[in-house]
């Protein structure tokens, strides 16, 4: 494996990530073939950078400070056209300043619009989404948040989803 972003992490975080990787068990991996050519697909982006619009509720940092084992498992809608002027990043495990200086660093909506006008993809979905990536217990994420996002993306006739970590 030539990809090595561990070198950007401190030693402790690196060791925890490796321990988590070693514990995972693979199940059957799903696969949905592209329903149509990529140049006709509507694409939605999902970031885990903890992005919330300034007119929306922030991700809950107070509760995480009170219970550091907990991370906010809810999601925020980021409509196409939202820029770094309109948001803040509420993720205490990454440096939020890069995404707040240029939202495309974590949620590349402008880049997606450019690639759509080039013809690589059909179009950018009208709505994109953010989660907050520090979630140690994924129960709510799996049972509630992800299915709710899937429903919303179906309503927008999304064909394909790009997940962007933070």
């Amino acid at each position, binding site marked *: 494996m030539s*990809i090595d972003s561990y070198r950007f*992490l401190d030693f402790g975080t690196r060791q925890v990530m490796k321990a988590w990787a070693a514990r995972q068990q693979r199940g059957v991996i799903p*696969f949905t073939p*592209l*329903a149509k050519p990529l140049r006709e697909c509507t*694409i939605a982006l999902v970031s885990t950078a903890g992005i919330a619009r300034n007119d929306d509720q922030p991700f809950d940092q107070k509760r995480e400070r009170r219970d550091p084992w907990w991370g906010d498992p809810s999601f925020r809608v980021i409509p196409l056209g939202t820029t770094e002027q309109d948001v803040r990043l509420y993720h205490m495990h990454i*440096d939020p300043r*890069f995404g707040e200086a240029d939202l495309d660093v974590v949620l590349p909506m402008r880049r997606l619009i450019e690639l759509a006008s080039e013809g690589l993809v059909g179009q950018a979905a009208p709505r994109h989404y953010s989660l907050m990536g520090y979630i140690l217990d994924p129960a709510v994420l799996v049972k509630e948040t992800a299915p709710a996002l*899937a429903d919303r993306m179906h309503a927008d006739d999304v064909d394909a989803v*790009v997940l962007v970590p933070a």
Partner: protein
Amino acid sequence: MGLVQNIFEVSGFSTVALSMIPELTRAVGVPRLAGISHPMGRPLGQPHDADGQRAVLRATLDILATAQGPDAYIELPFVWPESPARARNASRDLPPPPIVALLKAKPWLLVNLYSGRIPHEVTPAPTPGSRGEEGI
């Protein structure tokens, strides 16, 4: 993230994930994955580097068109322009996340983090040899 991706895929979407820690994502197993050696917090690249960001997104989207079956994995060739030390130092002035502060005060709880036995509430300080209250 891998769990969320698989739920989307089962729900009928074709999905691709970018990952800075593909080892972890591949351990879960996902339909389509692009590994990238970028620092956390900057998955697409440097702020205001539109060309670099577009290249990363294009390479990630390409996998949607080329993957023939599950567990498709591409290592993206992008090279981060700073040294790892410089990238880490850029964020050195930030306060540590709450879990780091907690584990500094109660290092015995590190076993929970390593093992994935996540307490549901802040545990009272356990006596040595016990692990305190645990969740599932």
